[in-house]
């Protein structure tokens, strides 16, 4: 799941300066589940902005709505009538949602209300941790189901850096050493010998280093 976090409201207040008719658009999928941009947060943000504007003595209207998934053109298109009359859109979707809205409504400025943070899971209610970096070349089969790319601070492929202590990363004592986890897991699976295998240099071109990526499923293309 994509995990995002709401921007500081003061930052959003600055971004909406000069606008008269604002629409806050929520997304009912990932950002609802990570408690950042669902219907509830949209209502709070809209109300907060209305209050902030009134405090500043400005007159502006803030409306709110929410759609199923901001990352689908069809869902965003359905906003057409709702968007009418607004001079600024605020998206509480992830970065993808903001861009879909920007693409579908080229004449309207759209601003993000969230910072898209990571691909991960809730460790417990209210705490989310990273589990994937979308590197485009999954090696979880070799590492006992623990991802060294996202869970090792240095994304090392052939064992720990040597800086870890008591299973914790040298970057921060609160972070588990990814390679320690991999070792423990493989030990439990009785597959430690797989660590002896040297992993070749990773081809990062499937990750961000190759520029913007694209997935094509030829048989599904209409």
């Amino acid at each position, binding site marked *: 799941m994509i995990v995002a976090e709401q921007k500081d409201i003061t930052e959003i207040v600055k971004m909406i300066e000069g606008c008269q008719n604002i629409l806050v658009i929520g997304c*009912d*999928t990932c950002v*609802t*589940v*990570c*408690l950042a941009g*669902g*219907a*509830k*947060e949209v*209502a709070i943000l809209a109300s907060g902005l209305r209050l902030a504007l009134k405090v500043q003595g400005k007159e502006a209207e803030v409306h709110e709505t929410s759609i199923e998934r901001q990352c689908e053109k069809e869902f965003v298109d359905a906003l057409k009538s709702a968007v009418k009359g607004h001079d600024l859109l605020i998206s509480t979707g992830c970065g993808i949602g903001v861009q879909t809205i920007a693409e579908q409504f080229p004449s309207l400025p759209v601003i993000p209300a969230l910072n898209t943070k990571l691909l991960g899971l809730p460790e417990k*209610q209210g705490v989310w941790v990273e589990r994937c970096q979308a590197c485009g070349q999954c090696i979880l089969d070799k590492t006992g189901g623990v991802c060294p790319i996202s869970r090792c601070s240095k994304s090392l492929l052939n064992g720990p850096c040597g800086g870890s202590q008591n299973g914790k990363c040298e970057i921060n004592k609160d972070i588990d050493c990814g390679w320690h986890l991999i070792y423990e897991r493989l030990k439990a699976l009785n597959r430690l010998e797989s660590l002896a295998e040297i992993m070749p240099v990773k081809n990062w071109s499937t990750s961000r280093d190759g520029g913007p990526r694209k997935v094509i499923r030829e048989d599904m293309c209409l």
Partner: protein
Amino acid sequence: MDNHLDSCTGGNNGIPVKIGVFFCTCGHMMNDYFDVKALMDYAAQVPGVAFVDENRFLCTRSGLEWLRSKIVRSGCNRFVIAGCSPHQYEVRFMNVLEEAGLNRSFLTIANIREGCAWACADKEGCMPKARQILSSAIKRVALAKPLEKVRRKVESSALVIGAGISGIQMAIELHGLGLRPILVEKQEKVCPKDASFMNPCTQGAQGSDEVFSSGWITQKLKELDDKKIEILTSSQVTQVKGGPGAFRVTLETAGQEKILDIGSIVVSTEPEKRAVQKMTALRPSHRIVSLSGLSDLVTRERRALEQILVTADKRTKYVCFILGEAEGFAKRSTVMALNEAIALKKQFKAEVVIAARDIIVSGTQIETLYQKARQAGILFFRSTEDSGPTVSIEKGVITVRIHDPALDRPSAKAASGNAGVCGSQESEGAARPVIIHADLLVFEDEILPGEDTECLKNALRVNLNKGGFYQEANIHLKPNLSNKKGIFLAGSCHGKEETCEALGDVRSVAMAVYSTLSRGYLETEQKVVIDTDKCALCLTCFRSCPHQAIEIGEVELGQKWGAKVIPEACQGCGICAGECPAKAIEMVHYSDNQIFSELTLER
């Protein structure tokens, strides 16, 4: 305000809202505070209000009768009663609505007596406040949605987890009430873990008919057998779904999975015991035992005990009990120690000393037991937290030093002149320890939650308290209920200390189970509704419901997944509605719009 108008002009499923407002003048008393007639005129002009009337005493029988006839004749479908606090007669008025064939949720009380007339510090503020209370009540009731009632058939079976003393007694009591108990035991055989758990309340001391001994167990086991009570041994509960009246319990029975439909669940597991730290710090010796170890010696290894307490030289033997070293369960230790002390004194003519922080006598007949111990000549010393008894072993001699604060006073010097139990010559200062050369030293046990508590807690999804025992829903109001309705707690699994108390517990749990299941069905209001289309399946409500009344699964059989409320388990706090990030959960009687409607300020 808009919402309110919407619903008045047909937003409510097309049927226009017609509101009837009834004033109760509380025997004209209200007229002393404000002009009721003017308030009635004010109410009459609020959009949506179709009928206004007053009565002197709505709460009386004739008043209620009057209300019922007015409700029927007025042709209104929503009602506001302006009078005393909702805590006085709201339920009664709601019942009248129900009798008149309307949903009980279509009523809002405007609290203009306690909330306004009596409470206003300034007379001038009284009338505007009454108007404001009235107008929010009218707006609120216009937005009311019906509270649906759910009736569900309940199972007559009750699962009793843990076949200890409480568990066995529980099953027998439930069987006697005509229910179908199923006893689950983790071990291969039903046999209460430890005889010492039975020992505390012997006949005579407790004045009870029941004699707690191995005979008691044999008799109860026979009773289980005679009544053909179903017993599942080598079994553990692995998963519990559903709510009161209709639990679906998954068990692991001798390696096999078994699914049962159960009406109520009773947890009656037994706690564990551990030697106190003070005892484990000493070198192990057969002369140093725990209370439960002593019970074992008394019942099973009498010869070993005789070797310690009877010798050829006829020297008086000293037995010393040290109590108050463990957290909690002090009453249980007190009773056990008193019983054992009296027995040792009588049987072996030993000199018995009890050093305790506190002798707790708050239980059936424990005071008598204490007096009996005193009459038998048992010596009591008080120890304090900062100067507990110290124990040393030199050349096989166990020496206990007790600092009793009562003996610090000069007048008490003479009191400690017993042979063997003698005032110290060692120190001249204020602290004058009593020194005992004990032949047998007895420590109390530390009582801990059973080893499987954590596991069972996760299966049942109930809370534990700080000590790791099962937590009650409310220690005063619902002392036998866990945080989940339908799951009850009996005996020492939630810290009941001694057997008499535990058995009392069993009786009240049996009655509670009976009252839940005896009618064959449960009727509950659906206080919280979830809009499955909006539900994002984020699990927030599932995790945050304090009563585990929310389940995630197929909303209807074969349909898509979503969160659903178990109305029987829901207690109506609204925490889930407050947490839901998708605004999919609504509390019927406290919807967001209703709360917002109360916030609009009259200008």
